[in-house]
């Protein structure tokens, strides 16, 4: 079964700050120069929203955002189309694209200081309430795949995956933590 949409959030270091105004021209340049995977279209500016979506690079099949939701800034990668039926493949491709965006941002010369991202936490969200409702049963169905993927991705360290069960109206979200990642 092909999920409708998934997102992956990779967090900034706790003491890292980011100037959203400076991100805007970076994202515009990514469109021009095709710097990250996906068919990229435009940049949406939501700086006026407190703890909101920040700046979003809108694509046809993917979005990338410097997202401020929950008061935790991070790179939010959203895969919107062509996810495919294999969740493991989708996670592999998604994390790879998200990491490309993270590395590209960290090396962006116009951002001073350059943003620094954590390498030990991620949040995976399955934005598909029809096929993956936010409940324990749906979490358990995907848990094995997510754990196996996380173990590979954070190779050599112990990982945990936890269902975010605070509000069942939210989409199914899974926090991934890697203890001792370098």
């Amino acid at each position, binding site marked *: 079964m092909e999920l409708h949409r998934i997102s992956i959030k990779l967090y900034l270091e706790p003491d890292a700050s980011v100037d959203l105004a400076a991100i805007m021209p970076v994202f515009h340049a990514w469109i021009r120069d095709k710097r990250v995977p996906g068919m990229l279209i*435009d940049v949406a500016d939501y700086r006026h929203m407190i703890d*909101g979506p920040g700046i979003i690079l809108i694509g*046809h099949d993917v979005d990338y955002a410097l997202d401020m939701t929950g008061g935790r800034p991070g790179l939010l990668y959203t895969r919107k189309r062509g996810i495919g039926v294999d969740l493991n493949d989708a996670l592999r491709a998604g994390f790879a694209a998200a990491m490309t965006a993270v590395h590209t941002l960290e090396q962006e010369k116009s951002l001073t200081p350059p943003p620094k991202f954590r390498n030990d936490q991620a949040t995976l969200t399955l934005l598909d309430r029809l*096929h993956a409702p936010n409940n324990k049963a*749906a979490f358990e169905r995907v848990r094995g795949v997510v754990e196996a993927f996380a173990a590979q991705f954070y190779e050599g360290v112990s990982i945990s995956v936890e269902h975010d069960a605070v509000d069942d*109206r939210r989409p199914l979200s899974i926090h991934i933590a890697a203890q001792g990642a370098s």
Partner: protein
Amino acid sequence: MSTASWKQTLAERTPEHLAHEVDVYEGQIELKRQGKIDDKVFAETRLRRGAYGQRYDNGRRHDGVKEQSLDYPTGELTKGTETIWDAPGMQRIKIPFGGLNPEQMDLLAELAEEYSDCVLHVTTRQDFQLHYIHIDDTPDLMRRLASVNITTREACGNSVRNVTCCPIAGVCRDETFDVTPYAKALAYFLLGHPDCQDFGRKFKPAFSGCAEHACGLVTMHDVGFVAKVREIGGKKRRGFALYVGGGLGAVPHRAQLFDDFVTEQEMLPLVQSIARVFARIGEKRNRNRARIKFLVAKLGIEEFRKLVLEERKTLPHDERWTAYLADVADHHESALKDAVQLNGQPRPEGFAQWEETNVYKQRQAGYATATVNLPLGDLSSDQMRGLSNIARRYAGENVRTTVEQNIVLRWIIEADLPALYKDLETIGLADPGAGTIVDITACPGTDTCKLGIASSRGLAGELRTQLTAKSAALPDAIKDLKIKISGCFNSCGQHHVSDIGFYGNSRKIGNYTVPHFQVVVGGQWHENAATYGLAVGAVPSKAIPQVIDALTQQFVDQRQRGERFQDFIGRLGRKSLRAMLEPFMAVPTHEQDASYYTDWGDPREFTIGDMGVGECAGEVVSLSSMELSKAESEAFEAQVALDEGKYDEADRLAYRAMVLGARALVIAQFLDVGDDPQRIVDEFRKRFYITELFFDKYAKGKFAQYLFDRHESPNPNPEHESAHRLIEEAQLFIEAAHACDIRVTAASMDNATP
């Protein structure tokens, strides 16, 4: 994981008529994919379901250096003229009179997450908009809305748009009576009404509970109602002053008084009559002159009134004209809690400032409304869920959107206000200043609109930031001024009725194009948008904050005692105002200040090359074409049923497809044919079969016979073969109906040509 579809999952919870509408629409999408529907017909079809185009949907975008091609996977497939299938679009969601409940709010939050960018936008007509929607997702999006009783039908296109209403109707201290049930009745009466399917342009109604205050903005609408009570025969009767022919757009018109007092009983038939006259004689070829305001101006109100009243006499009686009055009598909003006043409860920090601007004491003692001041009309899906929790806790079902792009929670007990404020703070929605100078209205502009010239939202965001930072020190004289910004002259931001308004344009400076805004001052929001502002001059976008400072300072310094801003503007005059703006009109060279050559919130070198063909004034598609498109969809549904082994349903839908095809032809001659199949078949026989208008050169009346045979002798036990055959016959009938429509249209144009 589940293999269910939203259609299956929601089947039990969705009103049948809403579910069917979406099924038909989905069928039309499939037919378009197969190339069986014309671009213009499909564009109007999806517009009438609120599925709008967005900037760059022609597949081209200027990246700041050069125009780039956006290579969507679906290649040449289009969803309208020059509108690529895969390109993100906007979904407009109508919220009649702005009325929302927490269940609907939760669902909207879900849709924003699964189909959009997690942001919900409140429009200047109390709708919601979701951006970056893929058209393939729109049927499920609409199904999910239907499950909470929201339809997107006629949210866009040449149709009756959302019926707006004062957001404090029912709790307002000054209102004559609560206009909410009337706004609701009109919205649902006109929705899909046959007399409203052949307009040349959109049609916007509005309601106001009183004449003095702004909330309903009646005089800037196509048709507007202001509540009145009159004594008739010794009894107090409710009714309305009815206005017609208002509208903003590029050239604003004030609505004219159609009737000083229209009774509740006449409200619906009169609007129906107005719709008929508009459909019949309104302009359709020249899109720029097709709003009803031009028709009323051209005819004059006396002649227009005469035509409408004549039309009124011809209307077949409709029970619904007065049936809604039972709902009016029953209309009642209830509070969650008994009223308790705010007495000595601790006030959190910031509460006093928020209360001063955002809280309105209801006429019901001990209750208040709280306005949630949304930045640029936006809230995130998480915020929407938080707000629905807050509504459940304090307001119950009593939530309204506003035309100032905010949300109002009603029936809050005063004692709860501090706690409500704290809860809003937790979700980042406790900004004070609702309805004041910091609460700036802006249309989407160049962010997403194809017609946007300059960045209305970018400018609004910048002004909001600057004005909020100094809001505590702003003189009282200017605190309540209204600023409204449109991205172009079409005034979706309602700049004409603001104290200080702007609309986007551009100027050539050397080899560059520089974003500008035309400054429009002295419009009047109050007295139902009583007057429109003066255009004074165009100023570079980056100089607008200085214009605000200069203009407001001049007002503070030079106003006479008690003088209103409009009167001050009138006293100063255009020449003097222009002189004030002159210093800000100069554009530095690119070398001196390159920032002037980009727009707010967009670092790209400014260009107007990204503008496209707007869909707000899209093509007029004939009524017959639109109706035949529905017949096609029904035939498609019949095929789906056949594939699923549902032969009874396939037979029924194939027959219905032929009836719809016949109706499509009949209504061009006889609008009031109604929906009864017997009547439709009789009229079709009389007008198209006996006259041989329907006859094909070679097949003669054969295809018509398919309809007559099925109508007269339905098969009691359809099976695969018989259902399949009937579907084939339905297809042939519809093809013949198309051919007939073309012949008849060509003949009428030949007759019209001198």
